[in-house]
């Protein structure tokens, strides 16, 4: 069984309410029972209730797998990057350090890298993953692109990311405002030197009074 191609994962941080239903439900999935592998980042509670849920983005060319010396991390044909294979994983932490999104976690007790596998036992049977099933605000959504376009006309899915010179395309989509472009900002563009990126103006944040 594999995850049907028409079903996709979408993350929309603007909807997140920080309730942790995803964190609690993640540990209830049969492929990684007892281990919650989703991250819920509290951005800065002193200033805002903003929180951001992050599942594995399942890269087309997964950095975690590329840096694995034991060839323990496999991507299945449907594009899901799986947890490290137990017999191969040497718990070296390369993947943990290399992942640009900070997804893999080292389970030191089991000496095994564990990561979000999109609830493979569920999604490979066409069911929603646990987190997207329960998410009360549907900041996490699993379904078709058509459903998403119909339900969320104000935003559009993005799956291209830029980290330094590394371009990454992912299976998972992050919802961004419809008008925005998938451009990246190079810090040098605002420096008093030759720019290597696009010329832009950065808004200076005001000092807190």
């Amino acid at each position, binding site marked *: 069984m594999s995850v049907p191609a028409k079903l996709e994962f979408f993350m929309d941080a*603007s*909807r*997140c*309410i*920080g*309730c*942790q*239903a995803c*964190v*609690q*439900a993640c*540990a*209830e999935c*049969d*492929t990684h*029972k*007892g281990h919650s592998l989703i991250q819920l980042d509290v951005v800065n*509670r*002193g*200033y*805002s*209730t*903003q*929180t951001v849920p992050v599942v594995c983005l399942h890269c087309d060319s997964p950095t975690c797998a590329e840096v694995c010396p034991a060839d323990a991390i496999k991507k299945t044909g449907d594009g899901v990057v799986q947890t490290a294979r137990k017999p191969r994983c040497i718990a070296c932490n390369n993947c943990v350090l290399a992942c640009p999104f900070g997804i893999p976690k080292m389970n030191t007790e089991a000496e095994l890298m564990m990561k979000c596998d999109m609830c493979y036992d569920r999604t490979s049977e066409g069911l*929603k993953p*646990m987190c997207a*099933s*329960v*998410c*009360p*605000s*549907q900041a996490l959504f699993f379904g078709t692109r058509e459903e998403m376009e119909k*339900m*969320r*006309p*104000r935003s559009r899915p993005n799956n291209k990311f830029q980290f330094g010179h590394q371009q990454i395309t992912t299976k998972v989509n992050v919802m961004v405002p419809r008008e925005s472009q998938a451009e990246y900002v190079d810090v040098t563009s605002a420096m008093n030197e030759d720019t290597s990126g696009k010329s832009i103006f950065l808004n200076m944040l005001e000092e807190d009074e």
Partner: protein
Amino acid sequence: MAKLPENTLEVIEQFGPHLAYAQGARLDTDTEPDKLVKTHCCFCGQQCGIQLKVKDEKVIGFEPWYEFPFNKGMLCPKGVKRYLQSGHPDRLLTAYERDEKSPSGFRAMSYDDAIKRVASEIDRIQTQYGKDAFSILSGASLTTEKTYVMGIFAHMCLQTSNIDYNGRLCMVSAGAGNKKAFGVDRAANSWADIHKAEVIWISGANIAECAPITTDYVWQAREQGAKVIVVDPRITPIARTCDLFLPVKPGRDIALFNGVLQLMIENDWLDHDFIDNHTVGFEALAEHVAQWTPRKTAEVTGISEKGIRQAAEMWGTASTSFLMHARGIEHHSHGVQNVLGAINIVLASGRIGRPYCGYGTITGQANGQGGREHGQKCDQLPGGRDLGNPEHREHIAKIWDMDVNDMPQPGVDAYEILRKVDKGEIKGMLSICFNPVVSLPDNNYVRKMLEKLEFFVSIDFFMNETARQADIVLPGSLHEEDEGTVTQLEGRVIKINKAVECPGDAKEDWKIIQDIAKALDREKGFTFQSPREIWDELRVASAGGVSDYAGISYEKIEKQYGVFWPCPSDDHPGTPRLFEPGSWNPIAKGAGPFYFPDGKARFNVAPYTPPAEVTDDEYPIILTTGRVVSMFLSGTQTRRIGPLVDQYPEPRLELHPQLADKLGIADNDWVKVESRRGDATIRAMVVRTIRPDTVFMPYHWAGRKSANQLTIAAQDPISKIPEYKVCAVKVRKADGPPEYDGVLEPQQ
């Protein structure tokens, strides 16, 4: 009598709260459950559908129930982890009686002996002091069948006036306001009407934490272009991305509603046809609100004049809308007036009784709606009837086959019951599904009153803080151990299904009540064999009443994924939206859509009055209380579920950095909060998301961590709801950690 043992640590050691985590079959990935039971969550008023996985008479997990239309599989963290209450090490498996010599204060006893003792004490107290000397505290987390049984138990079996329920802490302001304005007390719409409303007005409702699934309805409306207005002293998660946030000073909501209405009138943002044809009382109200200029409204509410004008314009010019409120405007000594203020701006807009034109109060408890309709309220009989109404009394007395003269007259509210204990008028009490030692305001007083009782019996599944004070504790049933219906926040009647049997000597609550009646030799009317039998009698009893359940069968509930009352006959589909033009109800009888003889809704003048306790030099800061997402009410269940406790272990005091700086308090410092009634030492949480004149403390904890040590027992004169949302406190950096630090676990 019922005095706590000196050393509560030994009570806690035996009875908890201890934490349950997943282990054994709950962690095995290859365990096939014996069955999947379609039922609902045991916590809040949304009543999300859920499927419980059962293995060897234990709930071992859940599977989303995608088909249930309200939540489509969505759950909050409480729903996800609720399965951990099943088979919990703290579960009461036998009856207990007080034993002063036992370190834990109790010793186990046989169920039959416990029932005999309860019956003999009830009989003794009622014989010696009169029937009203025995009182009952019940709860709105019980199924409607159980609440119906509690009403019969009080009004026919014991013939005591003194029964009331914990909805007194929850839904009564909304209920009273709705009855005054609409003549009926139910959310006017199903939540489906939120989806295409142009404006969503949310007042005093921390939706993201207290009714999380409702978030998706609000966000979905926003995707279609809806503007969201949130009125709250805190930027709650639902407020973070709203279009207009109005940081109201706690206790001043009515001023805002009056001010908005004044601007609606000034700018003629009114539905004159609707006002003329379907309402009465607008002119008097218009005259009253004329004084609420934007300037004055801003001064009283603490909201900028600009914000008030924007809100009025957004609301006034919309063509569809949905207004929701919750305890934030209801938990006040003028809670009913706040509710009436909210309804006034709905009625003035004419946006009710039509698609995407809605109004609803967000119920707190599972059966916050059904639990307030069928007879466990101090003044109520089944079908939303009145205990003080001679016709209603006759009707129900006939169904119960009792002499109407034996039926007691209306009694008093839950807090007044305690004051009657103080006065020596009430000597005995039975409590079920209510944890007043944690949940009532000024709870040091509550504890003293329970100590004063000659006899106190508690029915519960865990030994909560109130049960600890009982003379006898009877082991009742958990949510998954019985079946029955509840009515959720939309007015949809849904069915709770049994997943496992009661363990040990524990019994379904209605059976315990029947066993007591039998031991009292007052079995008449108490020979139900199943919840279905109770339900079928309740359907008959409610027929013709305002809350008409006559046509709601268990089968229809299953087939339709719930049935909205009123549903007066077998062939009636139920009523998702109230007040539709041309709709019929038993009061108006066709005269109009509202539940008054003329069929018209009522505008009510809702004058502003300040909170019972305003700040002064000695107590200069406002304390407001509320909930966090991983905990539920007094925490009897959620403080026993490990992952939920880990998510938010102990109460913290939210305060703004401006206030924190002034007081020399840093984030995570121990701070002492004091009111005229009590104090608590907890950790500070310095956040910019709260008004600088207000501090917030969640109320789910007991003992020295309880917010209700500080709150005031002032009550609304109409609804009798306590003023949890405002009192005056002082705050300072604590001299050191509290005594409980390092002694008690976070949940204890």
